[in-house]
């Protein structure tokens, strides 16, 4: 199997999975939004089922991800965490869940940014899943402080250096903004390197710090992925920025405009579910003539040839809604167009059709990333419900 990036259609929410074609088949899960399947909505993609299909089990038969990154603690980025993931020491793992429930997924290493948490909790109350994540992150940090880098299931990377020496005693597990690393779950990975672009460091001026918080400060990462060890350089750059909004993207452009390739990508998860506010300070809904911020757009427009821009959102309609926002979609389509005819913008909630979306799977090959084949079955199934007749034997 080639390396793959999967975007699960989880409505207005994020859930992405990188699976590498390395010896360990390393998996990195970025945010989750696992909703309860309601009975009247059987077209909704069963995210937990689709996720579990793609995960490996460890030698004890327990499903796991090597890494879970939470870009920021909003509910639509961590929904279902407590229900589906094991958040405690491995010793307390339940191998016999009650009937009808699946075994919980083990997170071997957590990537978390306490700074993002601090900024988020300033303006909003944390949801239960976010609190549970925070508790687990604290457990792991405490363990590190006591015993050093822990075992799989106890590991954590802290993303972003905080102020007032808060992260000073975490040097071995700290990745500062603008640093690039290759150590995944305590092992140097041959196929991936991760550049941390955000959260932006703490600001001296309170007003600026406030701006970062109100602009949905998130972990922003650029994953550079090789299809195999023989690739001389990464063939797919994947940029993820949580819900970061316009101010943050402006600041990023300001910082990197002289080396714009730092922000270059082959695959972009368009921030905040294709929100207008990642591109503009104006309201899409009320402003008479909402304007795009040139700098924020530039930060998000470093698409390389043949790039794929993906909105992880509900289907995008030509209306006043935001997110997802029709205006943002048009802007991203323009960006795609600038990156050559083969570049494209896609809404995960519309693939292969709006009524029964399926995970959108990108493969990584030596010649670059490859989108799914174009198929018709998805659209046919709307007409008659189920059209696939099982083959039988005579």
């Amino acid at each position, binding site marked *: 199997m*080639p390396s793959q990036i999967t975007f699960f259609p989880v409505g207005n929410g994020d859930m992405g999975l990188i699976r590498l074609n390395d010896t360990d088949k390393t998996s990195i899960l970025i945010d989750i939004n696992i909703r309860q399947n309601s009975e009247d909505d059987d077209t909704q993609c069963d995210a937990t089922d689709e996720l579990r299909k793609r995960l490996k089990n460890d030698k004890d038969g327990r499903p796991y991800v090597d890494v879970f990154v939470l870009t920021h603690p909003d509910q639509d980025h961590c929904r279902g965490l407590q229900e589906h993931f094991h958040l405690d020491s491995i010793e307390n793992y339940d191998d016999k869940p009650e009937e009808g429930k699946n075994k919980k997924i083990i997170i071997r290493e957590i990537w978390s940014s306490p700074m993002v948490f601090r900024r988020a909790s300033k303006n909003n109350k944390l949801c239960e899943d976010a609190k549970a994540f925070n508790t687990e992150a604290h457990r792991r940090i405490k363990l590190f402080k006591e015993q050093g880098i822990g075992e799989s299931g106890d590991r954590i990377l802290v993303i972003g250096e905080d102020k007032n020496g808060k992260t000073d005693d975490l040097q071995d597990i700290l990745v500062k903004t603008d640093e690039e690393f290759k150590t995944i779950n305590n092992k140097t990975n041959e196929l991936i390197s991760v550049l941390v672009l955000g959260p932006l460091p703490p600001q001296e001026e309170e007003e600026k710090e406030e701006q970062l918080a109100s602009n949905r400060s998130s972990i922003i990462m650029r994953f550079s992925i090789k299809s195999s060890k023989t690739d001389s350089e990464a063939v797919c750059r994947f940029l993820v920025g949580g819900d970061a909004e316009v101010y943050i993207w402006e600041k990023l452009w300001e910082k990197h405009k002289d080396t714009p390739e730092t922000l270059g990508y082959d695959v972009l998860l368009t921030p905040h579910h294709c929100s207008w506010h990642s591109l503009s300070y104006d309201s899409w809904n009320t402003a008479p003539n909402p304007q795009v911020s040139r700098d924020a757009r530039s930060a998000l427009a470093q698409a*390389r040839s*043949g790039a794929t821009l993906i909105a992880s959102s509900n289907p995008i309609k030509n209306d006043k809604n935001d997110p997802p926002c029709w205006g943002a979609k048009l802007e991203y389509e323009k960006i795609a167009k600038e990156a050559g005819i083969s570049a494209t913008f896609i809404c995960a909630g519309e693939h292969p059709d709006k009524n029964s979306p399926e995970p959108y799977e990108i493969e990584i090959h030596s010649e670059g990333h490859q989108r799914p*084949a*174009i198929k018709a079955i998805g659209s046919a199934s709307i007409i*008659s419900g189920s059209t*696939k007749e099982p083959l039988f034997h005579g």
Partner: protein
Amino acid sequence: MAKAKKTKSNFPQHAIDTVELIQAHPAVLTNSAKIEKFLPDGSFWIKFDINVSLPSNAYKTGKSDTGVMSVEPVIFDFPLSYPYRAPKIYLRDSFNCHLPHINPIKVVNGKKYIPPCVVYGETNELMWSDQNGPHAIIDQLSEWLKHAASGCLINPEQGWEPMRRDESSHLVIYNIQKLLNSLNSAEGFKFFPGKYLETTTQSGKTVAVMIEDDSLKLTPKKILQLLKLQSSKENISPKPIYALLVWGENIASRYAPDFVSTLDELLEMGALLECKKSLGNGLNDLLLYINQSLQNVTGNIFCNILLIMCAKRPYKLIGGNSDLEFVPYFTALQLEQKCSPLTGKLTYEFNRKSSAEACRHHHKLDRTLLKKLSEGHQEVTDQSIIMIGCGSLGSKIALHLARSGYGPFTLIDNKIFSPHNTARHALTDDLRGCFGQSKTELLANAIGNTGQELCNEKPYDFIELAKDGWKFPSNTTLVVDSTGSMSVREYLSSLSVEENPGKIFHAALFGQGKVGLIAIEGPERNPTISDLSAKFWDAVIDHDEIRASLSDSTLARQFIGQGCDSYTMTMSDAKVSLFAASMAHKATQVLKSEESQYGEILIGQPDESQLGIKWVSLPQQPPCTIFNTSYNNQTWEIRIFQDVAEQIKAESESWKNIETGGVLMGKITPLRRCIIITRVVEAPEDSTRSENLFVLGTSGLRKKIMKLHEYSCKTLTYVGTWHSHPMGGEASRQDENTLEKLKKLRLGYPAVCLIWTPEGFNASIR
């Protein structure tokens, strides 16, 4: 516009509709679908362009490293039988054909087309699985092209995809493992004997070739014989053939779909498969023998040969454990006489335009193949199975087992196959109209047809045979008794484990196929099938439904000839099969599982729909407690089922230091001097219990016993009494008196006196 309309209207509506359907597929380029041609035979070609998902950097040149373009032209060749038959798919002739999953190249009017293999299995079925028919095929093609573009049509971890041969009309059958084992050098060639059968079908001539496992050394004499028989005008079928197996030492790591139709092209393929040298040597060797054998012959001749090239691949083949791929061709070699420029003599040469046609390979029929298809694995172990009785039930059970790769078999039955047997039997007489072969011989032939080595066939009465000194083979695993004979059941039950090491599986039908019985003995022949069948009758007492079915169980007299009748049941073949299939299935479970600690009884009855059989499993039967005791100077055996023993113990203990007791029911077999106790009957109300005396009452006892006797279909009777001695000790005077009194109930037959003491049982016969 008007012209276009006219052109369009020249085509039948269904072809035009199909164009629209194809055009509607999201991967098909707008306005690209067109009817390319419409042939007089009613088939038509639709050409369209399909958007291919390429790796992102490939778009810069519009072509991937593997040569796949972002837009690929495709032809769907719709046969006259569409929509019941799917279209064939062709890609452009310049498409990279060194990719895996490509069918043999198609040549039409001298033009090459590349047919991708987009689905495992049948495209026809794939098309019918989706309401939009061809859309399902385009979906698969879209996925195929995507994988082709990124070079991911196969995954080395999954294995090397062997050359596609699904559509070849010729078939060759050989044991691949034997051929693999015969490759004894780095490179070389070998000849193998075989035979072939030519059949003419609607689509032309097809050939089926069967190759033997062991190679042979060619001689001019053998070649002469081969050429004679192959060219004989007489209707010889099958004809002999030789297979030439060639192999090289270098790795053939390049994919190529089949393009071979002549000897020339076959040599070209040989080079691609890194077999060129061995192929040349092998063909030269063959030619040498041909020339030696045809020294005084003139005129052109031909020689059919099966050529198998063995290519060494860079990794293991999909679904196999070897990296060697066999590529077989049926080759009709034309031999022409030419004058040698060196010697001036006339010698035969191969015509390089001789035809060569690809063959599909199928595994040779053997137990391994059957095991794989029946149970999904190939582990064949020899488990000697003795079939006693090769009648309707036995023949069906035996063939089910043989078809699942079990064996070897020993068949025992003294009957011959008569016309009336045809009504329900797995077999039919080989010599139609000339009955009289033994059933064992016919069954042995049928089992032989499943690829088993010869069965051990005993067309004798089993008991006579055994008394004559025949011994069960020491590796006997299972003995299937389907004789419908009580004498055989009892005889089998009397054998020691040394005499018969196999597990006895008793299968019987009752009441015109209303009830089926499976009894499987316990470890060390305890409980025996005789015990279990008594327990079956005991169970019948409590199962009204089964009893009702059994009440008309008498065998009917069927006249099968003047002055000849057969006592048998009226029952259809299908009904016997319903039971036989379950019984065979159970037998395979016994063969597969570990030794059980229990005896088993299964009772089958038609289900509510009357179409299936509902099987009820009685509680597992642990070994019986056995006493040997003397009566009238002869040894009798008393066998007590464990549930009976436990019931007695429980009741005795519940009365603490008071004596108690009751009546024993079961089966008495004076011929074997054996009493089997299957049930305890509660003591009548007028019984008296005290610390050192239990007096069995008689009130209603006779009536009760008669009822139980009736309900057990008159198989079980009163066999004695039991009582407890809580303080220990043997039978007392009073006990003897009681027994004497009760004996009157059963015409003087011996009766068991069973005494329970806290130390255990104590049994005697009076």
